[in-house]
C-alpha cells in the first residue's frame, strides 16, 4: 500500500456558526470515519490546524503574519492514510466529514523519494 496526504482546505467560516450539539455530532462523524480507517489499518495520522500562522517567503527573508492562503483556500488540517492507488485514496476521501462544512480535500501521494 502507498501513503497519501489528504490536505483539507476551508470550512472554517461555516463551522463557526454551528451549535455545540451540531459540533459534537460533527466530531462524532470524524470519529466514525477515522475509526473505520484505523480499524482497517489505513490511518497513519492527522491533525486539525489552528488558523493562525506565519508565512516565510523570499528565501526566508520575508515573514508575513498569516498563512499563505485565506478563506476557502486556508489549510484547516491534514490526514495521512494508506491506500492502494490514487483512485482508492480519492474514494476514501469522499466520506471525509469536512464536506459537511464545505471544505475541499486534495489527495496527494507521498513521494517515495
Amino acid at each position, binding site marked *: 500500500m502507498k501513503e497519501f496526504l489528504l490536505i483539507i482546505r476551508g470550512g472554517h467560516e461555516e463551522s463557526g456558526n454551528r451549535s455545540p450539539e451540531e459540533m459534537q455530532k460533527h466530531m462524532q462523524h*470524524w*470519529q466514525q470515519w477515522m*475509526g473505520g480507517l484505523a480499524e482497517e*489499518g489505513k490511518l497513519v*495520522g*492527522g*491533525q486539525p490546524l489552528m488558523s493562525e500562522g506565519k508565512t516565510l517567503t523570499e528565501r526566508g527573508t520575508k515573514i508575513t503574519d498569516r498563512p499563505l492562503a485565506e478563506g476557502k483556500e486556508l489549510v484547516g488540517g491534514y490526514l495521512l492514510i494508506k491506500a492502494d492507488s490514487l483512485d482508492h485514496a480519492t474514494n476514501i476521501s469522499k466520506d471525509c466529514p469536512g464536506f459537511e462544512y464545505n471544505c475541499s480535500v486534495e489527495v496527494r501521494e507521498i513521494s517515495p523519494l
Partner: protein
Amino acid sequence: MESRDHIDTTLNHLFRQESGKMVAVLIKIFGIENIEMAEDVVQDALVSALETWKFRGVPDNPRAWLYKTARNKAIDVIRRKKHSKTIDFSDPQKQLLTSGYTLKATMNDFWEEDQIQDDFLAMMYACCHPDISRENQITFILKSLCGFSTKEVAKSFLTSEDTVSKRLYRTKEYFRKYKIRPEIPAQSAIVSRTSAVLSAIYLMFNEGYNSTHVDQLIREDLIGQAMSLCRSLLSGSQTRLPEVYALMALMCFHAARVDSRTTADGSLILLFDQDRTKWNPILIRSGEDYLNKASFGNALTTYHLEAAIAYQHCCAKRYEDTDWNEILGYYNILLDIAADPIVFLNRSLVILELKGPEDALKSLEKMKKNKLLEKYYLYHATLGEIHQRLSNHALSRVCYEKAIQLTQSKSEKQFLQAKITSNR
C-alpha cells in the same frame, strides 16, 4: 466558603466509592504498564476538587464533577505523551486518541457509564490473577481499587508502609512483565476466576470482621469495601454467579452482628452472651434476600453453607432457640466439600452443644496431631472448654494457657484468662 469538614467528608466518601473506577478506566486508556499515570490523574482530580470546592462549594453532582475533571486531565496527559513511547497507541481505538479530530469524542467513549463498571470488574479480575499472591492481591485492591492510602493499607494488615510499597511494586511489575490485560474472563473460566476474587473479598472482610488489633474505623472500612466489591460483581451480568450471592448473604449476616461482638472497650462477647436486639435487622433481611437468590444453578459452595449456618444463628431469637441439628447438617456437608480442619473444629463445637462434652472430645480426638490445629489458639481454647465441662480442671487450665500463648490479640488473651480464673 464551605466548611472544610463537609468538603473532606464528601470527598473522602466519593474517593472511596469512585477512585477505583476512575483508575480502572484510566488504566484501560493508558495501558496496564502505566498504572502510576492513572493513579496520578485520579490524585490530581482529587486535589483539584479540594482546591475548587473550598472556594466555590461542593457542586450539585460532585461525582460527575470529579469524573469530568479526571477526563480532562487524561486529555492533557494524552496531548503531552502523544509522541513519547510511554503509551501504546497501536490499538485502533487508542490511535484515535492521537488526533485532534477524534481525541475528545474517543475519550468520552471511554467514560460511558456501563463501560466504567465493566472496566472496574475487569481490574478486579486482573488483581486476583492466580499467579499473584493473596496478600499482594489484597494490598493492590485496597490501594488502587478502594482508594486506601499506603498508610491505611499498612494499618489494616499490621505491617509497615515499606512492605506495602514493596507488595504494590511487585504486583505492578507482574502486570507490566506479563502484559496482563484487564478483562472479565470468558464464560469457560468465569467460575474459577471468580472463586479467586471471592476469596480475596472474603479475606478482606474477615480482616475487618475478626481482627481485634486495628482501629474501629479501619475495620468498618474493610467490611464496607469488601461488601461493596461483592456488590459490584452482582451488578455485572456475567459475574452474577450463585456463589457471589452466597458470599454477599454470608457477609450481611456477619456484618449484622458486628456491633454485638465486642464490648465498648473492645473485649470479645461470645454468641451466648450477645445482645441479640443489637443485631441489625435490615442487614439480616438483605442477607436472606441474597441467600434466596444464591440458590439457582447447581453450585453449592462453602459460602452457601457458611451463609446457611450464619442465617440459623441470625434467626434464633434466643441462644436456646438455635437449631443445632440443622447447623450440624450444614457442617457435615461442608466437610464433604472440603476436609478443612477449622471446619472440623467448629463442627465439634456444635456437637458440644448438641450431644455434650464426651462426644465433642471424641470428635476432636480424630484431629489430634493435626499440625494446623496444633498452632491454632481456638483449638486449645475449645479443648479447654470441653475439659472444663468434664470437670478436668487441671487439663482445662493447661489448654487455656496454651491458647493464650498462641493468640496475639490482647482481648482474646484477657478473655481466656478470665476463663481460667472462673475455672476453679
